[in-house]
């Protein structure tokens, strides 16, 4: 190695390198290989879920044995989707098939594409995906469909038109989710004041369609003003940062709706440690009972809602198996059985949503019932 004669330059370069390497290591640990993606495999038929007994006979319905269904959540850490994936694994376990869970570590379309490719190369029978983007996944999904793989979306729909055609497993009627959260908040803040929304990624399909209905419902409450929508990217730290920005920009804020489990938990945690804010600001949204239980019991949050994510994955698993076995179709009115959840009917396309099935209305959780739920 040659000595650099100017020690100043050398020191500066050293410092630059130290900063950069530190940056890189942090980044790699957190998010660097966004394009990297992958998975854990599970073929569990254990009854750890909350979906009741596995009494449904796997042989009675003409469902093929040994089906392989790829579940591609938004990322591999989202606790809500981990539960949904377990529900899917339970369904396929009952049917003698297998679920492979595969995704990236960050909520981007690019991180999900390698998982779709892996499903194609593994000759999977169906893909159940929660889209990080309504459009960017379509070319890859269409390739999968051409390879004979049935495409389903859950949690967050993709919007691909007919390329490919797919079935959307709707957690609950989109409109009801949007309007009911506004109604809950309206009740708690006496229909008056500034409100804000703490959402996930700005490109998340589900969030945006709920927000459309929230805005629509707000026209019923002329004294409630939506001042800002902020995006926490389903990351606790980011959610907290944008929440703090929101609180400082709008000191008269009365209510926050966070229609994401990550956002509502971050906000609840903050409000819980800042009691002065707690007297002014009402928080509601979509949350996991297990995570929100302490905040509901101590009064930080009075009401929030959600459907059972495990049931959602379970329904998606049964729908995927039925489509892959040819025992149901995307035609309006087609039916299939979903194990312990009973029978479901494919609904007609409406608006941006193609053929879909709806799990059921969301459950409202309060201090009275939150302890009864274990997801």
């Amino acid at each position, binding site marked *: 190695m040659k000595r650099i004669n100017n020690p100043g330059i050398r020191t500066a*370069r050293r410092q630059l390198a130290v900063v950069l390497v530190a940056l890189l290591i942090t980044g790699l640990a957190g998010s660097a290989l966004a394009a*990297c993606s992958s998975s854990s495999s599970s073929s569990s038929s254990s009854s750890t879920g909350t979906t009741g007994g596995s009494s449904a006979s796997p042989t009675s319905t003409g469902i093929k044995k040994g089906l392989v269904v790829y579940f591609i959540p938004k990322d*591999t850490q989202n606790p809500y989707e981990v539960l949904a994936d377990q529900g899917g694994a339970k369904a396929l376990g009952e049917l003698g098939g297998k679920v492979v869970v595969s995704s990236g570590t960050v909520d981007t*379309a*690019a991180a999900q594409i390698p998982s779709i490719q892996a499903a194609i190369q593994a000759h999977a029978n169906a893909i159940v995906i929660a889209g990080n983007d309504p*459009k*960017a996944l379509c070319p890859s999904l269409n390739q999968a469909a051409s390879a004979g793989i049935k495409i389903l979306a859950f949690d967050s729909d993709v919007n691909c038109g007919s390329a490919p055609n797919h079935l959307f497993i709707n957690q609950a009627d989109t409109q009801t989710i949007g309007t009911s959260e506004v109604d809950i908040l309206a009740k708690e803040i006496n229909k008056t004041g500034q409100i804000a929304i703490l959402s996930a990624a700005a490109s998340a399909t589900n969030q945006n369609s709920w927000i459309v209905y929230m805005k629509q419902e707000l026209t019923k409450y002329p004294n409630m003003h939506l001042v800002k929508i902020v995006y926490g990217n389903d990351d606790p730290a980011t959610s907290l940062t944008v929440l703090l920005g929101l609180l400082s920009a709008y000191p008269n804020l009365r209510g926050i709706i966070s229609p994401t489990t990550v956002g509502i938990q971050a906000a609840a945690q903050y409000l819980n440690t800042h009691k002065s804010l707690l007297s002014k600001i009402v928080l509601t949204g979509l949350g996991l009972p297990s995570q929100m239980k302490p905040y509901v019991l101590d009064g930080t949050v009075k009401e929030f809602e959600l459907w059972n994510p495990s049931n959602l994955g379970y329904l998606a698993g049964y729908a995927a198996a039925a489509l892959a076995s040819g025992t149901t179709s995307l035609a309006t009115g087609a039916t299939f059985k979903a194990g312990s959840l009973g029978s479901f009917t494919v609904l007609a396309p409406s608006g941006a949503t193609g053929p879909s099935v709806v799990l059921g209305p969301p459950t409202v959780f309060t201090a009275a019932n939150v302890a009864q739920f274990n997801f």
Partner: protein
Amino acid sequence: MSSEIAPPAAGQQAAPHVPAGDAGPRPPLWHRALRWETGLVVVLVAALVFGSSESATFASQTTLFYAGINIGYIAIMALPMTLIVVTGEIDLSVASMLGLSGAVLGDLWHHGWSIWPAVLVALAVGAVGGSLNGLLVTKLGLPSIAVTIGTLTLFRGVAEILLGSQTIPTASDRPFPSWLTNIGVVPVSGTELSYTTVIFIGLAVVCGVALHATPLGRAMFAAGLQSEAARFAGIRVARMKFWLYVFSGIICAFAGILLAAQNSSVSYNAGFGLELNVVAIVLLGGVSIFGGRGTILGVVLSVAIVGSLQMALTQMNIDPNVQQIVIGGLLLISVVLPGLSRGARWLGTRPGSLRSGHKPPWALSVRHRL
């Protein structure tokens, strides 16, 4: 100075006009073969063998195509980054520029522009963004790491303002033309290579020739090794760096257009966080973060390693966090190993230096050897 596990004479090869090297005798052949690139070839072969043995579908043309889809647009951004790092600077705004270019393209398309004018404006935005970086670094003399962290957030912010939560084309928009979006699903005819792969190879040849076979390339190495000396030797260091930033801006904008075509859509967060992948690829390729060292061949090999490892690990259903650990580990090795080898080389080639008070480049190894 971490690029080559090579004798000091290699420094001469890189920058012969800079009076920095020992003009010692030519070292033996085995010593010259011990380059960083040789190590990369070994790692690449190991990655390919590993992938083929662990995954039944790895050794297929489809894998090659998919790997191109997944890493091609990232790899393209690594080429101008290599040139910039060789001159001793850095550009952390690359992924944000990719996102901004896509956002501009999408916004214009949303407002009824046809595709070619929209593409040209997106590329022009790349040039403008690049020249902003270049001006701040060369005219104001600000540190490039600070400047480009600033423009990283600036460009992404503008992209978010342009598109907000929309994904373009929206339901009411025309879809992008299919000849363009086909690059995401169809390989170049007659091959199994993605369009981005072919473009990357073409661009790598251009950059390789420019860096290794032209006076301009020598000037880049010279600027990276000793900026002042290069300036006194008549090289217009500032002007060269400025144009490299413009080049980087245009290429990243181009990558943004390619990604938009591949995905048939754009959203403001396209390529979020990829600047770290780009820097990782460049450093793993043996380009010294201190400037003045590195080869395009090394970066190409590094792209191949990262791409094949990612495909193999994905096909094997390895947890994505473990994949990051693997790539992060490789990167750390790529930073540590040249230090080790320098230490060994220093002992081997300059036996008297210790007594004459020169500090060894990797002190621990020397102490260990003593």
